[in-house]
């Protein structure tokens, strides 16, 4: 009897061990890495020098950039086979401020399956479902609020600078993007709003995610492109402010399509 019990225990142990080995073979551990984005700002191929009147746009405006603040959201990596992964486990909206170092690098918390991704996409700004007033109550994001009467939510971007205007004076420009308005009679009667966020899809070079490693990419905003292709944006024509000028914001949206590219660090 005693020997029988021992025999049964040995058999059960062997079965358990075999079963454990088999399970290990069937479901290997997930192989994941991370993605980190460094946000950089260029003008004519080199890093932007802030507060320097060193730049001339296609309209011939001599200009400087003082600061850039903007949101990107819904960053997604795409594989050649059509599958994709949305990086949203911590926050799907990221704020970048050229005056705040901490915002210029962001490592997503998402575990990204290893592999080769051939493109990255994101929304420039915030889509209308998410762009709700008071969702950011803390600074600096809260400073980006877009007034309720102009559509609410948040600026997608503030790009502030100055240009030398037609009479040779340094004139400030606030190249601000957000929800546009359709005016029945300007400025008192608004008959509708225009969502000006737009999608950006970049396919420069393969983004390789390796198990347990962080892949670093540099997302480059080419500032000069905001003012060219397909529209030549002229500060002398549009003036210093555009939050209430949908036609100007539409030009910015159209021009925004080729503002970004990326490189692998």
């Amino acid at each position, binding site marked *: 009897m005693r020997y029988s019990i021992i025999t049964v225990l040995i058999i059960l142990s062997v079965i358990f061990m075999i079963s454990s080995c088999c399970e290990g073979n069937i479901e290997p551990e997930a192989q994941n890495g991370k993605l980190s984005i460094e946000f950089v700002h260029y003008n004519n191929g080199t890093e932007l020098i802030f*507060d320097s009147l060193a730049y001339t746009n296609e309209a011939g405006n001599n200009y400087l950039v*003082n*600061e850039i603040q903007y949101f990107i959201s819904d960053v997604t990596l795409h594989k050649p086979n059509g599958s994709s992964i949305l990086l949203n486990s911590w926050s799907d909206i990221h704020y970048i401020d050229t005056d705040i170092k901490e915002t210029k690098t962001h490592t997503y918390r998402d575990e990204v399956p290893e592999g080769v991704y051939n493109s990255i996409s994101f929304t420039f700004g915030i889509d209308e479902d998410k762009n709700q*007033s*008071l969702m*950011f*109550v*803390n*600074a600096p994001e*809260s*400073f*980006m*609020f*877009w*007034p*309720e*009467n*102009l559509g609410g939510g*948040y600026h997608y971007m503030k790009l*502030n*600078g*100055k240009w030398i*205007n037609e009479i040779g*004076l*340094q*004139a*400030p*420009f*606030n190249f*601000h993007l957000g929800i546009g308005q359709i005016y029945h009679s300007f*400025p008192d009667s608004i008959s509708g709003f225009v969502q000006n966020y737009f999608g950006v899809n970049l396919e420069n070079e393969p983004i390789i995610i390796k198990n347990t490693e962080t892949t670093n990419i540099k997302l480059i905003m080419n500032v000069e492109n905001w003012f060219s292709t397909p529209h030549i944006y002229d500060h002398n024509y549009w*003036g*210093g*402010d*555009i*939050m*209430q000028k949908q036609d100007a914001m539409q030009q910015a949206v159209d021009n925004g399509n080729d503002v970004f590219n990326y490189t692998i660090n």
Partner: protein
Amino acid sequence: MKVYRAISILVIALLLTGCEDKTTPTPHIPTPYIIDIPFGFPTELNIPIDNPLTVEGIELGRYLFYDGRLSGRTHPDSLMSCATCHRQEKSFEAGIDHPKFPGGFPFGISGLHTHHVTLPMINLVWNKTGYGWSGFLYKDNPNENMRNLEDMVRLAVLAKDELDGDTTQIKELFQSIDGYPLLFEKAFGSKEITFQIIEKAIAQFIRTLISSNSKFDKYMRGEEQLTQSELNGFVLFTTEEGADCFHCHGGYGNPLFTTHLYYNNGKDTIFIDPMDRFSISNDPMDHGAYKATSLRNIELQGPYMHDGRYSTLEEVIDFYSHDLKQSPYINPLMHHIINGGIQLTPNEKTDLLNFIRTLRDDEFLTNNEFSKPLKFPDE
């Protein structure tokens, strides 16, 4: 016999020791004070880890804030406290009708005028971007003694143009005043007064000075409606084609009504103030830049601008409307400079003023919890 005696002594000693343990007072644990975040306000607060808010700390801070002996002196002519310049009825600013400082230009015990006019003490628990017109006290300051409200208290006490005090003399004075040591013990666990504890207590009290119940707050919460003129003013306030105040002074999405950031707003063409933002940041674009003040209760906070050059809000609105000065350092957000200002009509000025007046919070201005105590601990 000797053995019995030894055992008895041991037993008695043990009993005495036991009694001693029982009579040792347990350290006083002050009561945590929780700030209720008002609707739309930031959830992130500027409260240092080493100075959490407590009911007892705030109570002590309130006494010290109002006690003229904070100058370290007892002669009636030499009394001065925080409240001498920061008056509740003026949103904790001096105010243009200050009984002692003509025109609202404060001076210290020594008679020296302050370099700039006072800033209001309002909603500072949300200020994370520096104190003072230039932001000379800031979180990452290499000088560890120049970082937060606690440091502001000490600097004000020491400054020749303010309390002109001596920290040793002050702590010794309060140590000798009946009632204070007990309050210090309740709040910070010891009757021994240090100046660092004085700083902490006053800073705690200042962090509780919260204004969030103006007419505009009630409008935000759907409790009250604005008049048509106030609504017109609100639209002007929050549109670029209007007065475009909101980029620096907030609004519905930023109910602090300031960014707490620094701007050259076009007041001057020559910049010689050694205490502007440039003096701190060394950024050339910060010449002539100063902190944007909160517009809450602003109608009570004259004189206006860092140097108090304007006496009334009407003058301020006229300045922004027609009198902006061009310079290489003007902040890009001042895009109306190209027209010399926002060019408001008289009616628009009235509307804008009426809206700004909705930011007055009478509950804050009369809140007993912020007022001078009915009597001091030794009274």
